C-alpha cells in the first residue's frame, strides 16, 4: 500500500513539474515543440469533427437542394444570358474607376481578400475571450488579421486573429479583457478606445470630456485603427458612465452589434495572393497607360487615405484627426 502511495507521489511530482514548466516557460523551445506536438495530435479532432458534423447536417439540406435544383437551374440559365452583358458593363466601369482613381491620386484599395470560416470551438469557461475557427495558414489567415461577423447582411467587427495554425486559428474577441480598438461615435463625432471587459459589453474610454453623448449612438471602427478598416460597425452606446471630476475624459458602455454567443461563421481578411497582386499591378499599369483625365479641382479628397474594401461611402465620416486629441494606440494582443 505504501509503495502505491509512493509511486503516485512520484507520478504527481513528475506531472506537476511538467505542467509548471510549460506554464512558466511558455516561449522556450522545448515547451513550444511540445505544444506543437500536442496541437498536431489534437487539432484534427476538432477540425475533422466540424467537417463531419457539417457533412451530416448537410444531408437533409442536400436532398432538399436536389429537389429544387431543376427550378433553380432554369432561373439561373436565364440570368446567365444577362450576365454576359453585365460582365462587359462591369469591366467598363472597373476600367473607368481605375482611370479616375489614378487621376485623382487616390490610394489604391488595400490588398485584402475575404475568407469565410466556421466557428469550431469556444471555451465555455471564458465565453467572451476567444473562439477557434476552421481556417488557418493554409487558407491564408495571418496573425492580427481583422475578423468580422454578419448582422442582417452587414459586416460588423468581431475580433482579431491572435494565433494561426495550419487548419485553424484562434480569434480574440473584442470582449476579451486584452482587446482594444480605436473607434469613433457617429453622432458626437469623437474618437475613443473600445476595450473589452471579459463580459458581453465593451467600454469606450477616452471620449472628449466636452462631447455630448447619448445612449443609442452608433460606434464605428476608426480609420486610425491599425487592424481594422474604418467605418465598420462595432455596436451602439448602451449606457453612459457617470463623469469622474478627476478624469479628463468620459467613458460609456457599448453593446456589441453582433452577439458573440451566436457566432457561427466569421469573415477574416487575408492579404491578396501573389497572383492576385500581380493582376492588380497589371491593372494599375493599364490604368496609367490610359489617357489622363483633367481634374477640375486638383487635390486629395476628404477621405483619401481610407479606401478599405468594406468602407461605406454613405456613412458619416469620422472626425478629423488633427483638431482634437486622438485615442491611444490599440494594444497589441
Amino acid at each position, binding site marked *: 500500500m505504501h509503495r502505491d502511495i509512493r*509511486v*503516485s507521489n512520484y507520478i504527481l511530482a513528475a506531472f506537476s513539474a*511538467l*505542467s509548471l514548466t*510549460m*506554464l512558466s516557460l511558455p516561449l522556450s523551445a522545448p515547451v513550444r515543440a511540445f505544444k506543437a506536438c500536442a496541437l498536431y495530435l489534437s487539432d484534427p479532432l*476538432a477540425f475533422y469533427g466540424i467537417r463531419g458534423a457539417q457533412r451530416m447536417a448537410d444531408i437533409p439540406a442536400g436532398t432538399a437542394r436536389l429537389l429544387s435544383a431543376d427550378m433553380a437551374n432554369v432561373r439561373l440559365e436565364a440570368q446567365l444570358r444577362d450576365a454576359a452583358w453585365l460582365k462587359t458593363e462591369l469591366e467598363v466601369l472597373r476600367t473607368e474607376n481605375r482611370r479616375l482613381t489614378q487621376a485623382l491620386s487616390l490610394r489604391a484599395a488595400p490588398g485584402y481578400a475575404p475568407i469565410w470560416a466556421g466557428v469550431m470551438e*469556444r471555451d*465555455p469557461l471564458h465565453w467572451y475571450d476567444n473562439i477557434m475557427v476552421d481556417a488557418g495558414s493554409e487558407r491564408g489567415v495571418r496573425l492580427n488579421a481583422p475578423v468580422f461577423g454578419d448582422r442582417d447582411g452587414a459586416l460588423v467587427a468581431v475580433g482579431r486573429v491572435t494565433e494561426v495554425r495550419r487548419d485553424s486559428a*484562434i480569434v480574440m474577441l473584442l470582449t476579451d479583457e486584452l482587446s482594444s480598438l480605436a473607434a469613433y461615435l457617429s453622432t458626437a463625432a469623437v474618437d475613443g478606445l473600445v476595450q473589452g471587459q471579459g463580459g458581453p459589453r465593451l467600454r469606450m474610454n477616452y471620449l472628449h470630456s466636452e462631447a455630448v453623448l447619448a445612449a443609442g449612438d452608433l460606434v464605428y471602427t476608426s480609420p486610425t485603427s491599425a487592424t481594422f478598416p474604418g467605418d465598420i460597425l462595432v455596436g451602439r452606446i448602451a449606457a453612459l458612465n457617470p463623469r469622474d471630476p478627476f478624469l479628463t475624459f468620459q467613458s460609456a458602455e457599448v453593446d456589441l452589434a453582433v452577439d458573440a454567443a451566436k457566432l457561427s461563421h466569421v469573415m477574416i481578411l487575408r492579404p491578396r495572393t501573389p497572383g492576385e497582386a500581380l493582376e492588380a499591378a497589371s491593372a494599375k499599369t493599364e490604368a496609367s497607360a490610359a489617357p489622363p483625365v483633367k481634374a477640375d479641382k486638383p487635390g486629395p479628397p476628404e477621405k483619401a487615405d481610407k479606401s478599405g474594401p468594406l468602407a461605406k461611402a454613405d456613412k458619416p465620416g469620422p472626425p478629423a484627426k488633427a483638431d482634437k486629441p486622438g485615442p491611444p494606440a490599440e494594444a497589441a494582443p
Partner: protein
Amino acid sequence: MNHLRGAILFVAAAFVQWWWSAHWSFWGLSPQILLVLTMTIAARRGPNAGMGYGFLWGLFLDTLQPRLFGANAFALMLTGYGTGMARRQIDVVDALSQCLLVLLMSWGYFLVLGLLGMVFVKSFWWAGWGAFLCDPLYNCCMIPAASVCWQWLRSRP
C-alpha cells in the same frame, strides 16, 4: 481495460467534450465531462490512471485555448490524484459521495485555474459566477453517464 480501449475512451471523451462545448453550450455553460471522467477513472482505477488521463485530457483542453498552456493539465491531474487518494478513505464509487466529491473537485478546479492565472499572468483567471455556481451541478448530472460509460467499457469482452 486494454490500451486500445483506453485510447478509444480518450479520443471519444475529448470529442464529446469539444462537441458539447461547441454546439450544446447553454448560456455559456457546458458540463466538464473530462473532469467527471477523470474522477470516475481515479475512483475505480486509482490515482495513477486518474492522473494520466487527467493530464492528457488537460493537454487537449489547453490546445484549444491560447493562454496558460499546461493549466488544465495541471488542474485535471490534481483532480485525479485527489480522487485517487480519497478512495482510500471513503467509498467514492457510491453515487452520493461521488456527487459531493464532484462538487468539491469542480470548485477546486476553478480555484486552481484562477490561482495559476494569478501566478503566471498576474490576474485571477476567473470563469465567472455562472460557471462557478452552475457547472458543478451540471457535472453532477454527468456522473451516471460516466458510470454507464465505464461499465460498458468494462463489460466488453
